[in-house]
């Protein structure tokens, strides 16, 4: 764990050329970053997407992402390799997320599985635009919805995937607002039961 050591910021390699937009950075595991800004710009999108997939809302995802970088960047040696930096950021993200749930709901709702991430995302700097561990989330959501009875599936689709308000959903389904609330609540509970039988860490079946 060399990169845990609080090292003085030494003379790093010069950046060399023009700063590139984040999407165009190409880095592989063995390489190192030019400076902390390169570390930040190369990883912020990934960490944010990961956090968003774990908390489902922007304010918390932004706060937690900021916490990860504020915690992680100071003790990071610039000479740590890309792979080391990523592993360290992910480990920090896992700790930060766990603390967030302890603080807010008193129990761990979601967690970051480092091994699963390593399996799912072998190439850092890949241009996929998909955060580690979130690549399968849409497919998982689809699978989950498909397993639900029609009415439950519809209400969750409209509200979660298509951003319908309760009123719009009520109009679409021909229900009262109160009925939509109850239906949505039951649908979530039912989906949660299905989800328990098919935990995220498990490999997709079929």
């Amino acid at each position, binding site marked *: 764990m060399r990169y845990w050591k609080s090292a003085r910021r030494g003379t790093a390699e010069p950046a060399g050329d023009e700063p590139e937009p984040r999407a165009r950075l190409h880095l592989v595991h063995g390489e190192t970053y030019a400076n902390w*800004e390169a570390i930040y710009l190369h990883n912020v999108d990934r960490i944010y997407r990961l956090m968003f997939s774990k908390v489902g809302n922007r304010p918390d995802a932004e706060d937690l992402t900021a916490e990860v970088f504020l915690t992680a960047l100071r003790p990071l040696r610039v000479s740590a390799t890309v792979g080391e930096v990523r592993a360290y950021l992910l480990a920090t993200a896992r700790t930060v997320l766990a603390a967030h749930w302890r603080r807010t709901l008193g129990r761990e709702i979601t967690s970051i599985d480092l091994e699963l991430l390593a399996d799912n995302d072998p190439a850092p700097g890949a241009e996929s635009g998909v955060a580690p561990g979130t690549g399968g989330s849409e497919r998982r959501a689809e699978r989950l919805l498909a397993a639900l009875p029609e009415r439950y599936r519809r209400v969750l689709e409209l509200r979660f995937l298509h951003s319908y308000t309760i009123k719009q959903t009520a109009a679409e389904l021909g229900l009262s607002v109160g009925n939509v609330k109850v239906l949505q609540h039951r649908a979530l509970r039912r989906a949660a039961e299905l989800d328990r039988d098919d935990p995220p860490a498990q490999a997709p079946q079929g």
Partner: protein
Amino acid sequence: MRRLHRFVEKLLNGGRPRPFPADDADADALRVAIELRAARPGSGAPREEFIAGLHRRLARDQADAAPVPVRRRILVGGAVGAAGAAAGVFADRMIVGPPAAVPAAERLTPDIGAWHPVVNAADVAEGAVHGFSAGGVDGFLTRDGGRLRAVSGTCTHQGCRLGVHERTKLRCPCHGALFALDGEVLYHRLKAPIPALPRLAIRQRNGVVEVFVPQGPA
């Protein structure tokens, strides 16, 4: 159920959910709700403002943490700075860093610097203090006795971003140094004296105040 419902509604409309003591069944339902919400098309990407804002915050944090003297740090910063144009890039630029969304090279003319519009001159009343960030440089624009003046908004000690204090002073959040609006040091509790804030060149064009941000050796 009500608090669970409220939490889920916050997730759905993009707000910050309020904490509540969740039981096992709540936790399961929330896990699914988060999963479904995260699957909404196009919602997982960070805002550019957020990326740029955190970038600035980290730059200040890094500046605070650096144990090396400021002069040397600027040079080191110059060597490894994101602009890569290396040594001698204007000091404030290095500490603040260019906004992530707009690479510096696209904004500034190399070697010469550029005038950046800041605010309408009419909007700066007598005695007003207008904070701005232009071309990667933070500063404060003031009007005193009718004359406009701009000073750097970055502390000369370790590069923290200054804030307005009691409407007539600039205060450093890191070590409490106080500057007058003309850049003079009013107070500090540091071992060695710190220089006054650099003045920034400004001009008025078509009623708009512009600030000059040098790109070459300042």
